[in-house]
């Protein structure tokens, strides 16, 4: 179903040129958002505004509600209360302006690695698509794996393929849930460099969950720490020299507050 105006409505296709923060509304805004699973509150109330071009890293102990936060921003689930806004309009579902890297790499098992990466490029011309896929394969070091099916990949390769898939359509907002969790130190550094470079050159807004404090305090421009469940923001700081210690203390507090209690 190739559309006639092939690039016309491609989401975020023009972001590289546009640079950060043209509109005054935050790229992402959460207003008194809470989320309850059955009867167990998992998040909130959380208030958060993410200006366009911000690179936010999110830290917090396991099970505190980070992924829940991300799923609300992505539009995978509606908040139990409150509103999630993207570019000033309420989020009603997942959309191409917000690219997502899941915590567990959910590659489409029926597509090859190249097929997965090309999934979001349906509206590009064949050659353009192939070029973009090749570019992303190179960026994630998966050139040799283009034709493999997801089940033939190692854990880290899956994660890299998932990252490439999310980056492919150049979304305006990138939501990444521990994207480098399964990568060795070297590959991880390389990927960090790539993401930083991408952010620098395109002004993409990033929400980046990680459990690596060094990563949190060096990669982005701003860090929030959650404590929970239900997840609340206990620290919200711009990246600076002494931040690492503060963030570590915040996670330690949040985690020990419920150590031995419900997780």
């Amino acid at each position, binding site marked *: *179903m190739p559309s006639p105006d092939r690039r016309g409505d491609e989401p975020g296709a023009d972001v590289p040129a546009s640079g950060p923060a043209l509109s005054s509304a935050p790229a992402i805004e959460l207003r008194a958002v809470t989320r309850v699973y059955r009867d167990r509150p998992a998040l909130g109330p959380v208030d958060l505004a993410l200006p366009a071009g911000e690179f936010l890293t999110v830290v917090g102990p396991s099970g505190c509600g980070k992924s829940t936060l991300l799923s609300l921003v*992505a539009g995978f689930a509606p908040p139990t209360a409150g509103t999630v806004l993207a570019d000033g309009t309420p989020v009603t579902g*997942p959309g191409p302006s*917000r690219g997502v890297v899941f915590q567990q790499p*959910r590659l*489409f*098992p029926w597509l090859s690695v190249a097929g997965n990466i090309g*999934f979001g490029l349906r*509206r590009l011309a064949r050659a353009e698509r192939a070029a973009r896929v090749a570019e992303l394969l190179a960026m994630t070091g998966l050139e040799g794996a283009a034709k493999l099916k997801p089940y033939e990949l190692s854990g880290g390769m899956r994660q890299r393929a998932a990252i490439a898939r999310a980056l492919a359509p150049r979304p305006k907002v990138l939501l990444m849930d521990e994207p480098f969790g399964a990568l060795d130190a070297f590959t991880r550094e390389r990927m960090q460099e790539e993401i930083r470079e991408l952010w620098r050159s395109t002004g993409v807004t990033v929400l980046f969950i990680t459990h690596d404090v060094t990563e949190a305090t060096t990669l982005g421009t701003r860090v929030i720490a959650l404590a929970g469940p239900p997840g609340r923001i206990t620290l919200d700081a711009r990246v600076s020299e002494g931040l690492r210690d503060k963030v570590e203390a915040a996670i330690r507090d949040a985690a020990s507050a419920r150590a031995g209690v419900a997780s």
Partner: protein
Amino acid sequence: MNLALRLGAVLFLLAVWQVVAWLKIWPPVFVPEPLAVWDQLLRTSSEGYSGHTLAGHLLASLRRIVLGCLYGISGGVVLGLLIGVVPVLRTLLNPLVTFVRTLPPLAYLSLLVIWFGIGEEPKVWLLLLAALPPVAVATADAVRGVHEDYLNAARSLGARPWEIPYRVVLPSALPEIVTGVRVAVGVAYTTVVAAETVNGVPGIGGMVRDAQRYNQTDVVVLGIIVIGLSGLLIDYLLQTLDRRLVPWRGRHI
């Protein structure tokens, strides 16, 4: 190895059959000897039966089965997707499909004759009605089983709502749909005799009925075996297709 095992099993079954026929546990009218059936195979293949050779009967039936299954499977997949994907249609179509798929063909056969006459149409329709439900049910259930993350991922990647069914739901549900298709083909096969009660010659089902009427059990058994073998072949093709289409069965990540 497998082949040897299977050959052995077939020979064993043949031996059991021969012994049962010899012992005359049941009247010979009901259990003909293997050789008699073999004779009928040769005879019906050369001289024919009811004016058509065995191959002619088989081809006529296969044509109906293939057509009925093609329509039934297509319809079943579409219906199943609609039921699985569109909530309003689920509310309306799900009970309707369930209702229709419980109806016994023998009860509405005459309606098909009224609507479609006595040519090929009513037969193909009956086979269609037999093949559709298993596929529709399997598809609808498989759609409910598609991992929500796949749907979320696809939407995040810019897939439009109307693209989701064929870009995500269908491939993800494929293993179960293929299972549904295999069941459907089997059910269509079991219906072929019912479909060929009206003006069913040439046709294996019609041949079996003619033979039944005149107690030519060897022809009946021959017909049954031919039906079974051709079904076996089709199922084998489907299973091969399945392995080709769904290499990730049991290994999705």
